[in-house]
């Protein structure tokens, strides 16, 4: 039991150090908050920022936790909830909306067997809406991690998912 506690303590300490290192690299001032949040999230396999990480950032930058959380919950690029390794963000701003982004969402839901806001059991995919990703010319479009996929239909959606799954094998 004691050994386990020591080990947990070490893990926590390492996380502290890792976050503090990121903060020191980017700059320990409150105006760097978004950059720091993005970098911390980038290093996460689950594409989100944990409560413990937010607390360290809040403490180091001397910004209230509510505000750090407020910023993290404002931007759809950032998440305070666990997400998949691939975050499928379906644009539902006006141009994509009129090109049937709702339908796109349904196809993704069917293809992945999850609902919007959920994560697949293997932790590979999660589904969410986002506001405009600047790909209106390709509407309806989605963003999966750093990639944009446009002019989507049912077939294309299944193909994208298949190819990402294959990459993982």
């Amino acid at each position, binding site marked *: 039991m004691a050994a386990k506690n020591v080990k947990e303590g070490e893990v926590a300490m390492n996380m502290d150090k890792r976050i503090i290192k990121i903060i020191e690299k980017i700059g320990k001032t409150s105006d760097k908050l978004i950059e720091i949040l993005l970098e911390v999230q980038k290093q996460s396999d689950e594409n989100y920022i944990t*409560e413990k990480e*937010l607390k360290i950032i809040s403490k180091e930058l001397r*910004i*209230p*936790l*509510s*505000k*750090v*959380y*407020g910023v993290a*919950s*404002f*931007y*759809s690029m950032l998440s*305070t909830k666990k997400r998949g390794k691939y975050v499928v963000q379906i644009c539902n701003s006006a141009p994509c909306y009129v090109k049937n982004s709702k339908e796109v969402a349904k196809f993704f839901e069917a293809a992945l067997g999850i609902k919007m806001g959920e994560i697949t059991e293997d932790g590979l995919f999660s589904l969410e809406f986002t*506001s405009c990703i600047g790909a209106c010319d390709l509407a309806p479009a989605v963003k999966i991690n750093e990639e944009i996929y446009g002019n989507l239909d049912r077939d294309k959606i299944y193909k994208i998912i298949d190819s990402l799954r294959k990459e993982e094998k």
Partner: protein
Amino acid sequence: MKKINVNINGIDVVVPEGTTILNAAKKVHIDIPTLCYHPDQKIKGSCRVCIVEVEGQSTFSAACCTPVRNGMRIKTNTKKVREARKTILELILADHNCDCLTCIRNGNCELQILCEEHNIDTISFDKVVKLLPINDKNPAIVRDESKCIKCGRCVEVCNEVQGIGAIYNINRSCEMKIGTAYDKELKNVKCTYCGQCINVCPVGAIYEKSNIDEVWQALEDDNKHVVVQMAPAVRVSLGEKFGMQPGSIVTGKIVSFLRKIGFDKVFDTNFTADLTIIEEGNELLHRINNNGKLPMITSCSPGWIRFIEYFYPELLDHLSTCKSPQQMFGALAKTYYAEKFNINPENIVVVSIMPCTAKKAEALREEMSDSGYQDIDVVLTTRELARLIKQSRIRIEELKEEDFDSPFGITTGAAAIFGATGGVMEAALRTVYEEVTGEELKNIDFKNLRGINGFKEGTVKVGEIDVKVAVVNGLKNARMILEMIKQGKADYHFIEVMCCPGGCIGGGGQPRGTNDIKKKRIEAIYKVDIQSAIRKSHDNPVIKTLYKEFLTKPLGYKSHKLLHTHYKDRSDI
């Protein structure tokens, strides 16, 4: 400064550059409705209720945040403006829980008033308001998100005035709400329960936890001996709730009312404020003479206590160990008073009337039971007292003024000024000076420590020593002075900190009021002082009796047991 000529509703007006349409209109007595706007806060421009027409412009301008331009022709009361404002209000109402008849703000809600003024008779939009559970799992503050109109006033006061940030804007767009990180209960975040958010909320989204029913219940229980104490700031603000001018002093009427509804004894917190001065003054001298921790900081404001426990636990030994006057009163009521009048302390119910929401939480601190019982049973805010009066249907305006009961009713002007920022310091200096020098203090008014400024300082020659003092109010200023202490830059002997801007007269349990109203309350507090027969705590004859009969001496064994306390590192929350 450059002058700007504008025309509002056909009236020419000249204002300095940078003036908003709202303020230019005020100058010629044209009233533009506002909702998110608060005179003591930054301009937000989020609600859009104040929109006006500007000639040559195809869209409306929000009057609160649009500076006037030369030659601007503005119309504030056209059909187009009235209809648009109506639509804006209806949109707000679509996302507002309109249960006005059972709402705490029924009759004094800013949104309700606007709806009346704008002849809102229907809501044309689908209701989208979510009836979420009410958050009240803490001792002091209740949040009802279904009422929140997201004006942002509470966020500003919590972050910018108090420098705490227990709440902030969470999420975005129609999902946006005011809340804590991860939607935690207030008791699980660093909330000091100062209640300043309540004082600025225009609607019923945030309010104090009511304890009125407990008071009625105790009063109707024949087996209970129910005593009440009233804080210094309550008597100069309650009148506002009954249409009196800000700054009206209604002490005698409140005493009369409390007696009428059945309190066995009506006492004055000012008595234990005097006692605080004796104990705290002696503690300060003890620290100065024995190389104790300096600067010593006052400890009567429970929001402030929570603040230092949350954010600066390493500085806790700077705090005076004196309990607040409220808690000293409770400890004495269930010991000295019970013994003297032969009442079983088990049957004594102590009710406090306080300008403060944090006092509700203070009374529930587990260490506040040195009498062997919970020292204070029920805490009501000034606003709750007003509700109690309305409920009783007694017309306070018509009541004759009466005096407090003895023994805890004889008090001094020094105690009265506890209610205003700088007051505790001034009261302490009056006593410490005479205690040390043995001479009478001729000029007892420390005017440079008075007034609403966030930071004040001064030096007073007391015998051989130049006593350096500082006074801060508002927690952001408290943070500043704690940082100074940490960096070794605060060479003061004594610092007074009050959690709320202006001191207790601006407390989170007070009638809502702007800075102008707070200034009137402060004037009234000093009027009470100057009208007092005794103006120094150590001259209070009952305090002398109390030491003779019971406590023996300041900082003595009994004082330590009943009147002093300790604090807790709460930084982990």
